[in-house]
């Protein structure tokens, strides 16, 4: 079993210079305390770098090695870093040293390409050759299962994907679980036996071809075997490609998840751009309407002068008109002398007639014509005034004007919002995000095509197998040459393959039951909810909380998710052929004090060696000491020297 003895870091992250942390080989827990930004994740990454040469950022994306070296050292012109890990496995002492140094000739590196990563492994003080070292490391801690030994508490959320059989992340974790549980040993044997069975079938067909009586069946079988081989190769190719596409999809999904906020901003910016275009179109339309209406706006300014002028002209018109009417009446009376007055129907007296005649003589025809012209001119002016008074209304103008203003204000508000988003997106590589999105969509399409191809090839294979079985049955009734020997060989491999096939299923079932039982045992110790009775496992090793009334708890909080994931970790450790230390970064961040206490108490039962990277508020030292008691094997502190320099010191308070 792998056990860590000491970790030496040199200029790794905030760990300036050479620093060492020693770990006890006795069963128990070592706690390393460090506040935010002191280097807890860097320590976890140092172990990861030693084993796999990789450093992960938040999430699971590989970090640029150029950024890993100590910044204070880099500022002084010293680049690169080194990690040395001392560990024990199967009674052997190992020392693994991995370094990242600027390549020869590079004095000021600017990117990962300017570095060379080298490692060597010592076993019992002997340096192993590169191939042997690689094989040893793969045996001791395969990278595919490292997620169960070195993990970030924040990523425990990922295990929820196991409850949904359709996610690629869930599929990847499920595969990793089977790997740590040793299932591939059996499935590989089953695959080998299948190949041997097919080979023996081919040999039997060849033997049948050698005999006159069985030749025809032999030929048909040989053809079908050749066809099956081609189909198998095609299936293998498609499945390989599908697997790599699914991994690619999961990585892209993860990348997109990380860029979710940026993607949301980009979407919002696009929406704002669209809205701005719509508002601008609305504004332009209203502006045109307003411009048309504004051709009469000048009349609106003249409303008062027009009203006043109209009043004055109306008075003049009335006076002039009255004067002309009076003249007309008088002329009429003169023309019809002796008749009655048309107004009062009285006889017109001679005195009155004389007055009429003198009045008429006072107004010449010329003057009358002048007055008529004057009246006509007055009326023309009045008509013009009325015409323009009609155009002097401002209500429609005001509606249009305000619509244009409103659109302009709306546009400005949206523009302000858009500019704010643009500022936030200034340093964002939009092209990369667009490419990720496009790649994701193209990967999904590719996966769809591959899945259809796999299904079609499988159907052809099934048909080919069924045809071969029918011929085989007919051939079984015949004998000849060395057919008997080949037949027995084929039957043996066939039986062995069936046996392993059943064994895989049975082993998986047993494992699931064991993992479920161990996870339930741990869960009962960890949960603070007395009504929770345990956990139920699904085919993908996803765990569902079960209530004491037997029903499933359909929704769980992030904290509950962490508790369940830790139970799975413990159960896997307990059932895996390969065991090792657990190094966890910030495991209690989302947990309340009750759960934290329960988990701390249960940690020593999960595996022999546990290293916790925590901050004081997450796991108060007194709580750790009280709960772990003699199982507390060491306490370390990440002490600040400067923003870019942390010292690893034993905690003594």
């Amino acid at each position: 079993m792998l056990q860590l003895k000491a970790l030496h870091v040199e200029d790794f992250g905030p760990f300036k210079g050479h620093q060492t942390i020693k770990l006890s080989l006795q069963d128990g827990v070592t706690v390393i305390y460090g506040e935010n930004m002191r280097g807890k994740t860097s320590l976890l990454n140092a172990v990861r770098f030693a084993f796999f040469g990789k450093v992960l950022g938040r999430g699971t994306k590989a970090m640029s090695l150029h950024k890993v070296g100590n910044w204070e050292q880099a500022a002084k012109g010293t680049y690169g870093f080194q990690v040395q890990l001392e560990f024990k496995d199967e009674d052997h002492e190992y020392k693994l040293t991995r370094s990242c140094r600027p390549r020869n000739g590079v004095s000021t590196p600017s990117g990962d390409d300017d570095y060379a990563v080298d490692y060597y492994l010592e076993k019992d003080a002997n340096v192993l050759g590169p191939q042997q070292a690689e094989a040893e490391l793969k045996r001791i801690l395969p990278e595919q299962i490292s997620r169960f030994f070195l993990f970030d508490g924040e990523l425990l959320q990922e295990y929820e994907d196991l409850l949904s059989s359709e996610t690629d992340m869930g599929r990847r974790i499920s595969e990793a679980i089977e790997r740590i549980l040793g299932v591939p040993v059996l499935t590989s044997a089953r695959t080998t036996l299948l190949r041997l069975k097919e080979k023996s079938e081919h040999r039997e067909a060849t033997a049948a071809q050698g005999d006159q009586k069985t030749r025809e069946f032999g030929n048909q079988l040989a053809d079908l075997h050749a066809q099956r081989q081609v189909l198998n190769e095609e299936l293998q190719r498609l499945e390989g490609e599908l697997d790599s596409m699914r991994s690619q999809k999961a990585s892209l999904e993860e990348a997109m998840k990380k860029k979710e906020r940026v993607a949301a901003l980009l979407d919002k910016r696009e929406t704002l751009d669209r809205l701005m275009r719509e508002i601008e179109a609305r504004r332009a339309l209203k502006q045109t309407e307003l411009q048309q209406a504004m051709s009469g706006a000048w009349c609106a300014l003249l409303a008062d002068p027009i009203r006043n002028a109209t009043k004055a002209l109306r008075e003049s018109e009335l006076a002039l008109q009255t004067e002309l009417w009076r003249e007309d009446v008088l002329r009429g009376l003169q023309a019809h002398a002796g008749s009655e007055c048309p107004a009062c129907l009285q006889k017109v007296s001679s005195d009155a007639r004389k007055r009429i005649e003198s009045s008429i003589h006072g107004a010449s025809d010329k003057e009358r014509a002048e007055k008529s012209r004057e009246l006509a001119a007055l009326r023309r002016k009045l008509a013009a005034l009325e015409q323009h008074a009609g155009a002097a209304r401002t209500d429609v103008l005001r509606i249009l004007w305000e619509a244009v203003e409103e659109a302009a204000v709306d546009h400005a508000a949206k523009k302000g919002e858009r500019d704010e988003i643009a500022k936030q997106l200034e340093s964002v590589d939009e092209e990369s995000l667009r490419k990720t999105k496009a790649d994701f969509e193209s990967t999904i399409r590719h996966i769809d095509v591959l899945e259809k191809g796999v299904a079609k090839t499988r159907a052809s294979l099934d048909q080919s197998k069924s045809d071969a079985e029918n011929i085989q049955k007919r051939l079984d009734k015949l004998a000849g040459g060395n057919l008997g020997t080949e037949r027995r060989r084929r039957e043996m491999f066939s039986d062995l393959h069936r046996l392993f096939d059943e064994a895989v299923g049975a082993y998986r079932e047993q494992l699931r039951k064991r993992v479920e039982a161990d996870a339930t045992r741990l869960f009962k110790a960890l949960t603070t909810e007395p009504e929770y009775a345990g956990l139920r496992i699904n085919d993908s090793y996803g765990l569902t909380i079960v209530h004491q009334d037997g029903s499933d708890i359909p929704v769980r909080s992030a904290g509950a998710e962490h508790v369940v994931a830790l139970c799975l970790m413990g159960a896997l450790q307990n059932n895996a052929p390969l065991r090792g230390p657990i190094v966890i970064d910030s495991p209690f961040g989302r947990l309340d004090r009750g759960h934290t206490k329960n988990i701390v108490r249960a940690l020593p039962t999960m595996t022999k060696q546990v290293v916790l990277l925590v901050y004081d508020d997450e796991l108060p030292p007194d709580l750790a000491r009280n709960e772990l008691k003699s199982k507390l094997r060491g306490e370390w502190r990440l002490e600040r020297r400067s923003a870019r320099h942390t010292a690893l010191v034993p905690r003594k308070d």
Partner: protein
Amino acid sequence: MATDKKTIGITKANAAALAGLVSAGRFGSELDAAKFAMAYAIKAGVTAGSTDGAETKWNVGSVDPDGSMRSLLEALCPESAEPYRLAEHLMNEGIKSLAVKIGASGDLYETLFPAPPSP
């Protein structure tokens, strides 16, 4: 009898202000803006005068196709014997005053929709 003008012009000094009024976007043409300026001048109390040095911009037929503007001016400014000469003067005076009042903003809102007098 005086002969009225057949064309209407804008002085060089006012031409830029007129273009500014139009570019603010509220008017569809310089003629609409010039008529607005004319009305603004009348409202401000200008009722007579003539402008020298105006460069021909429009034919009166384009400015007042049905002659109604002429009649209106005759009604509003009865002392003037040459309505189109007066119109030209009013346009130029109005442009000058508007340019001073609204400056570069081109905001005619308060000019067009004055706030009602407070009670």
